[in-house]
């Protein structure tokens, strides 16, 4: 069941070509989307500007329900970028599936655990970084690990690592399962001729559901990232 990815080597370092290309493609799509939508912005928005402003507003809503109101605009860009990246990445795998022999050439980058865990690690490192930036190194240690009670420090340190795992694996699990089922239904469709039309309908239903799942997961990812960030930034009593 596990498909292999196309891999290549640059200077002794091996890369997962499929995942890397899909990640770069995601970035290009997100950037083009944002770039095109923010041209010729007007006070009275219309069309594409409305769309991008809706996303900006939506992310601001997520942020302001977790962070202190004066910190929202500081992390608005981060939340916006994460949201769009994860959302577009989730959607990419639904478009099609290219498998040659045993090697897959097209899939959601977020259906790869490495990508989601890297994202999660990045988020957790950033939350710690912003905490150090806000409280100073000593304040960060006291605020993050020794308050409200000192003996919980080991649990709190452990929590940093489990946060990476939960944040990353949740996204990966949802997307990976979606991809597997998409592949299974597609395989069922091409196995027998009379199954084809039935499989097409089933695939459409599953794709629609996956769009929903993808949207929810990108929302959850940004929300949790902001919750972790808020934990690091608020002053413990």
């Amino acid at each position, binding site marked *: 069941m596990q498909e292999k990815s196309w891999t290549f080597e640059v200077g002794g370092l091996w890369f*997962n070509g499929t*995942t*890397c290309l899909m990640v770069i493609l995601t970035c290009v799509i997100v950037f083009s989307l944002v770039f095109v*939508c*923010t041209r010729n912005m007007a006070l009275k928005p219309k069309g594409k500007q409305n769309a991008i402003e809706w996303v900006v507003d939506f992310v601001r809503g997520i942020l302001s329900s977790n962070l202190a109101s004066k910190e929202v605009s500081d992390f608005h*860009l981060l939340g916006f970028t994460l949201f769009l990246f994860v959302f577009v990445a989730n959607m990419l795998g639904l478009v099609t599936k290219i498998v040659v022999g045993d090697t897959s050439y097209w899939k959601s980058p977020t259906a790869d655990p*490495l990508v989601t865990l*890297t994202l999660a690690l990045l988020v957790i490192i950033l939350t710690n970084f912003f905490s150090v930036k806000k409280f100073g190194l000593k304040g960060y240690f006291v605020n993050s690990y020794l308050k409200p009670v000192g003996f919980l420090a080991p649990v709190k340190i452990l929590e940093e690592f489990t946060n990476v795992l939960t944040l990353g694996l949740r996204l990966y699990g949802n997307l990976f399962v979606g991809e597997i089922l998409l592949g299974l239904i597609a395989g069922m469709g091409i196995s027998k001729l009379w199954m084809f039309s039935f499989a097409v309908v089933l695939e459409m239903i599953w794709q629609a559901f996956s769009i929903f799942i993808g949207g929810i997961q990108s929302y959850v990812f940004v929300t949790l990232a902001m919750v972790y960030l808020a934990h690091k930034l608020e002053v413990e009593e």
Partner: protein
Amino acid sequence: MFNYLVVAEAQNTTLGTMIVVTLSIVLLLAAIKKFAWGAIVNILTQREEKISNDIDSAEKSKIEAESLKEKRASELLNSKTEAVKIVQDSKDYAEKNRQSLLAEARQEANQLKEKAKTDIAVEKELAFVGIKKDVASLSVEIAAKILKKELNEETHSALIDSYIEGLDNK
């Protein structure tokens, strides 16, 4: 999936992929910040300012309208009393005028009447005098005529004759 997590094995792609993902995300963030985020923030701030300005100016115009309304109401009241005063004044003036005109007319009429009376009296007097003269001259004339006739014998007899003839005829 666990062999993904083992770093530094031949043909292991973990490190490379992590680097690519991290780099792409950071680059994407930087690119959005440089090329698009400014425009979004700019337009949002502008709109915020415009809305708050609009609200302020709307409040100001509302207050202005309110004061204008009060001013208008008081002015309306003023002009009403003024109008009443003007009407009253003109009525008074007209009344006064009427009285004086009436008195004048009455006086003139009396004067005319007086004048006419004296005129009539004078005329009457003159007429009497004229008539008296006429009567006197007439009586003189008649007397003269009678006297003339009496003085003439022939005429006298003729007259008598004529009378007699007249009697005969009767």
